[in-house]
């Protein structure tokens, strides 16, 4: 059992942290998310070219750095600390992850583009009626000449406005297929909107969109296990991002409580606030550890992987809520304004809580998996 980071992993973290310190302070972030575009393609290019970061979790044969899920966690935690909106999750963790696992010609073609920063991907899996259920898909991919004819609607596609391609789930026959669709495909309509965390998302409508057979990711009708696995990988990455955000919220709160005076003494001298901060710390430490454990279990058999991912998502969902709400409370009035960065961390933490299944959803999934043998 070993929880230590390698030298390369420490370097990866330090390089990214140092870049973000210089190019992604809170005011720069605030300015960027207020633009119509809502992100900075220049930052993305930097991550790809200056930091060579987008290849972190990919094998060297594709031009990657040979890392894996731990590298994703390291990157996501740093992105979380700086409230980065650029789509590492959608492009690298999910998009690249799906392509790598499907392998073949698509992976060989697209992973180098992702690593180079030229392809920006978004995951178009969710449909309104499905809530969090990955298998509840109404969109259809019917066989058509040379490929598929895609029809249906997708919602809440994170980073949708920035994507050059979408990874779209659709029903084909009795199973689910996964297709790589160009953002400019004929028959694809996009409706963009901001999200509560300063990000951008899209609803997509597919009307007889023709997708070439070569753009099928994995085998026809067999994408559900792939999608379930990638969802667990996305969950671990989101948990790591949340850990980064929680570290910042706790650090800000400790600093504020130590300096801000009420009734002539620092807030940090009040025992109830001391205990609240102790509990915040406890929640954070356990979240960080459980995120690592879940990340290390991503290659275990599906049930074990899913159990760990759901546990982490529940723990991190609850912790982020508790730490965020407590941080706001201890900051008092300033905590509920958009002035401080704190509130923006709180909003991002809240959004993470609802992505890929909230705590209720994963609690149920955990119960079903852990009590299955008993049924």
């Amino acid at each position, binding site marked *: 059992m070993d929880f230590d980071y390698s030298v390369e992993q420490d370097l990866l973290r330090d390089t990214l942290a140092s870049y973000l310190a210089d190019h992604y302070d809170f005011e720069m972030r605030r300015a960027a998310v207020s633009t119509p575009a809502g992100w900075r393609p220049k930052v993305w290019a930097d991550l790809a070219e200056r930091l060579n970061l987008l290849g972190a979790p990919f094998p060297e044969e594709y031009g990657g750095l040979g890392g894996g899920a731990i590298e994703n966690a390291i990157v996501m935690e740093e992105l979380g600390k700086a409230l980065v909106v650029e789509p590492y999750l959608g492009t690298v963790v999910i998009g690249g992850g799906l392509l790598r696992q499907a392998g073949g010609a698509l992976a060989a073609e697209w992973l180098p583009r992702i690593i180079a920063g030229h392809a920006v991907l978004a995951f178009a899996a*969710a449909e*309104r*009626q*499905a*809530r*969090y*259920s990955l*298998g*509840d898909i109404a969109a259809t991919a019917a066989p058509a000449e040379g490929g598929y004819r895609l029809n249906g609607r997708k*919602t*809440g596609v994170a980073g949708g406005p920035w994507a050059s391609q979408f990874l779209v789930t659709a029903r084909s026959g009795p199973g689910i297929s996964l297709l790589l669709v160009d953002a400019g495909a004929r028959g694809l309509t996009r*409706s*963009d*909107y*901001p*999200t*509560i*965390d300063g990000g951008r*998302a899209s*609803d997509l409508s597919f009307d007889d969109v023709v997708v070439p057979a070569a753009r099928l990711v994995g085998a026809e009708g067999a994408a559900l296990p792939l999608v379930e696995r990638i969802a667990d990988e996305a969950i671990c990455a989101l948990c790591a991002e949340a850990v980064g955000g929680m570290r910042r919220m706790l650090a800000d709160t400790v600093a504020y409580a130590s300096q801000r005076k*009420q*009734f*002539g003494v620092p807030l940090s001298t*009040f025992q*109830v*606030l001391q205990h609240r901060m102790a509990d915040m710390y406890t929640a954070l430490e356990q979240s960080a550890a459980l995120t690592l454990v879940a990340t290390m279990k991503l290659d275990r058999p599906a049930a074990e992987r899913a159990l760990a991912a759901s546990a982490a998502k529940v723990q991190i969902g609850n912790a982020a*809520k508790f730490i965020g*709400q407590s941080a*706001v*409370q201890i900051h*008092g*009035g300033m*905590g*509920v*304004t*958009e*002035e401080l960065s704190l*509130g923006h961390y*709180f*909003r991002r933490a*809240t*959004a993470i*809580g*609802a*992505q890929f299944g*909230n705590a*209720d959803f994963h*609690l*149920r999934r955990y119960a079903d998996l852990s009590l299955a043998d008993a049924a």
Partner: protein
Amino acid sequence: MNLDYTTEELAFRDEVRAWIKQAYDPELKKLMSQSKNGYLDKAGQVKWQKKLAARGWAAPGWPVQYGGPDWTPTQRYIFQSETAAAGCPIVSPMGIAMVAYVIMEYGTEAQKQSFLPKILNTDECWCQGYSEPGSGSDLASLQMSAVRDGDHYVLNGSKIWTTHAQWADWIFCLVRTNREAKAQSGISFLLADMRTPGISIRPLPSLDGPIDGEQEVNQLFFENVCVPVENRIGEEGLGWTYAKYLLQFERGTAYGSLLRYLLAKIRHIAREQPAGNGGRLIDDPDFRRRYAELAVRVEAVDAAEMRFFSSVESGAAIGAMSSMFKLVGTELQQALSELAMEALGPDGLPFVQDSFAEVRGREAPVRPIPDHAAAVTPLYFNYRKTSIYAGTNEIQRNLLARHVLSSAGVRG
């Protein structure tokens, strides 16, 4: 001991219901459904409050001589319950429920005649200048100075958390007129015209993300602001006394009905929201459990409030009970807004900044969320304030503990 209303009270309740049905019109309702904080925009607020004034119900707590409706405590409770249960807008308290009482008790005849009718009819809007950047819950440490200069005071300093200052015609504020005196003396209570030169407003957008001009709170800067001495309430240096007098009118808000309204809103969301694989959220056992947990807590608050409002309590007990209701009431507001947001699931993530755009005919934003989901997540963010304002909940627990630890608090 019984729970029933008298025939007269039932008739009154029906009268209130009938009036709400007609006065709370579709435009106001639509605005409210998009509200991130329980208030409308200024036009909406004024419209609603003037309707109340026209009916004679704008100021339930006022004496008849100033235009109050002469209600019994039970009638006031019924009125509050019915408006809250119908989801009506909050009436801005700063004029009607705050400064007016100080003016009635300590104001000059001229002040009464000049201010009270316009407050009653919402012809003038008010805001409150108590908190300062350096003094949060610790009000006695306030610093804004008012230096006497002939028949004026000259004000310098800053106020913060000023609700809807941008809509206000007047502000009532606590200022320090004597730096020598100890913390709580040396404070005076002044009324200032918001158009006086030297007052500037810095919006403090809250986490719900308001558009410019609809921010809920602000910081105010006072630079050599001249306020006529005749705008002082009562005597110089007794401002703390008047502020404390006012506190008693802040007490006695019943949370139960607002909480029941939020429960109804959650049921509505759960009926509308899909739960995946063809199900609806309202049939989901986890949702049902969470709903019931909160609903039972609402029943408990409501029972305690009914008991409290139907009985006469001593002053100490009123203070403690008011701390208690503030605690449980705001914690439930927060918990309910949280459940509402989580009930939306992924539909809670899209964000609409200008939520009144559609009603007001402004350029309509993309509306990526269904009607029942509008402004639900912003309300969750907005409600974080409720455990902070009007004395943080930590302070309420301090106060309540003092009562509990006194012999009066606990009978074995």
